[in-house]
């Protein structure tokens, strides 16, 4: 916007707009901030009425999130002094830590499946996007539309046969099965986004390389790929966020082996009743990576969420 445009906002307008937006932003952050605070409360403080804003912070929620504990007799407790600070926290309930909880495993599954499917979608997506961008493919527009339309399908419409298919192939509850599935869901996004990015790279670079004696493959990975690096990186983050957040398929197709964190977190249960601080701790740990990625991605956000339909 040019500085001397006639309808440039006045300072007063800017001030009002800024205030309103900041108020909205702060209000919208309250739920997130609250859940992060809850992670540092004791179970009693978490369910106190009226809700406590000031409280004595404790790591109980985090300890409970990562460990399994059992109640022990007084004799046992007296005979075995606490081994570390975490054990100490647990002792106030006459309990001892007996091992790690499942949260670590589930989180690791989220990482494996998230990164595995992201790598595969971006890899396949880059190839396809390059082909669509540079070669004459018969019915290219139809194929591209077909690729996009698969994303509109309600997951539940294909969930039944996928469940049956996975059962027969032994892919249920496996990392490979989930990676393939998330790749299939993500690939439409990857192709569309990457095609946009590759379209923006001038063809002249490759053509020059071809004249210099490069083969097509060489031109592709020595010239095009480096140019598309930013695009590939942001596409990767979008794919990762989707796979990271996915719930419906994870809940249907995984039980123990390959279960990711989203179906697991809501089921964290303390001794009798939901353990809100532990849930809040799990939510916080789970959301942080996505929040960081969002900040990294802010320039490409719009493009990512609209499949490249809106570029800006």
């Amino acid at each position: 916007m040019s500085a001397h445009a006639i309808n440039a906002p006045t300072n007063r307008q800017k001030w009002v707009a800024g205030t309103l937006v900041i108020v909205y932003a702060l209000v919208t952050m309250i739920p997130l901030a609250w859940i992060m605070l809850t992670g540092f409360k004791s179970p009693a403080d978490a369910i106190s009425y009226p809700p406590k804003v000031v409280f004595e912070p404790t790591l109980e929620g985090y300890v409970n999130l990562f460990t399994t504990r059992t109640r022990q007799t007084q004799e046992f407790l007296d005979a075995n002094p606490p081994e570390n600070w975490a054990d100490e926290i647990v002792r106030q309930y006459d309990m001892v830590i007996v091992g790690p909880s499942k949260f670590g495993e589930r989180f690791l599954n989220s990482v494996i499946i998230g990164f595995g499917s992201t790598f595969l979608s971006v890899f396949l997506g880059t190839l396809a996007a390059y082909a669509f961008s540079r070669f004459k493919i018969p019915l290219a527009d139809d194929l591209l539309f077909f690729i996009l339309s698969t994303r509109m399908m309600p997951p539940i419409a294909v969930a039944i046969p996928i469940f049956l298919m996975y059962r027969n192939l032994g892919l249920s509850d496996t990392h490979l099965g989930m990676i393939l599935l998330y790749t299939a869901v993500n690939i439409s996004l990857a192709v569309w986004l990457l095609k946009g990015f590759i379209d923006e790279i001038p063809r002249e670079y490759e053509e020059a390389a071809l004249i210099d004696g490069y083969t097509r493959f060489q031109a592709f990975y020595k010239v095009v790929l480096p140019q598309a690096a930013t695009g590939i990186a942001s596409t990767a983050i979008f794919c990762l966020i989707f796979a990271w957040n996915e719930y419906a398929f994870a809940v249907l197709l995984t039980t123990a082996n390959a279960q990711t964190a989203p179906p697991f977190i809501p089921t964290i249960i303390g001794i009798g009743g939901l353990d809100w601080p532990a849930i809040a701790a799990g939510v916080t740990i789970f959301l942080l990576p996505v929040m960081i990625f969002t900040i990294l991605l802010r320039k490409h956000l719009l493009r990512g969420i609209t499949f490249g339909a809106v570029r800006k």
Partner: protein
Amino acid sequence: MSDGTMDRVAKATPRRVARKIRGLSDRAIAWIFVAPTIFLLLAINIFPLIWTIQLSFTNYRANRIGREVKNIGFRNYERILTDSDIWLNMQATAHFLFWTIFFQVLIGFTLAYLINKNFRGSPFWTTVIVLPMMLSPAVVGNFWKFLYQPQIGLFNYIVSFFTGKDPSSFEMLGQVNLAPWSIVIVDTWMWTPFVMLICLAGLRSIPDYIYEAAEIDRASKLRQFFTITIPMVLPFLMLAVLFRGIENFKMFDLVVQLTGGGPGSTTELTSINLKREAFEKWRTGYASAYAIILFVTVFGLASIYVKALNKVKER
């Protein structure tokens, strides 16, 4: 397309070199590059879809291995379309769709309009506002459930702080009259930024000279807003509505975590109902027909909408 150039380059070089340039023919490379994607989509999207269609005409149950599977024609479709309970689920879905889109467009557009004033720090605050939509809907639903707890939840407490109502006197998730709104609130909290971002792109696409011309014509600010801003942003806004509409028609995880469809069946959206039929009752054939009906509905509505969208764009 580049083939022209490529061919010219190729023709201009001696044969041996030409083969080296091309390595594999472009056509072969194109297919090698595209095939895995197409194959994956056929295997995990199209093949299952066809299978769903086939199953929808049977009485198959996935939990009864060895039970005879009979072809029962359109019986499943008949049963679904005449089931009054399913129509109630459709109504709940329609309520959810309408109001989430209404609020998200209203608030999202307003926010975009304000951010477009480019006050100091606007990029930073835009990023902050965008955070909720990047989170996992299931996890969001889960922690909003905590915020909605009567008495101990922050939401009730804040409402009571402003209205003087007793925070244990109402239950957002448990009361028939409030539960449908509780899911609208969370979805709006989460997805308003999405509409905002797209509107912002729309606003920024309007060239300054149009406003300048309007100034010269002495059109009032209000008039400019309705004759320039709104029509120019409309295609973007409609795109945002399309995306949200499709997404919310499929809505599952957020609402499952919040209300699980309750109380009674007041927030049992179609996809939640479908999941129950398919994976809890295991009426596989019946649920397949249900899935096809939903799929056709989304696809039909979306195509009509896209036609309208294109008309708006052409104007």
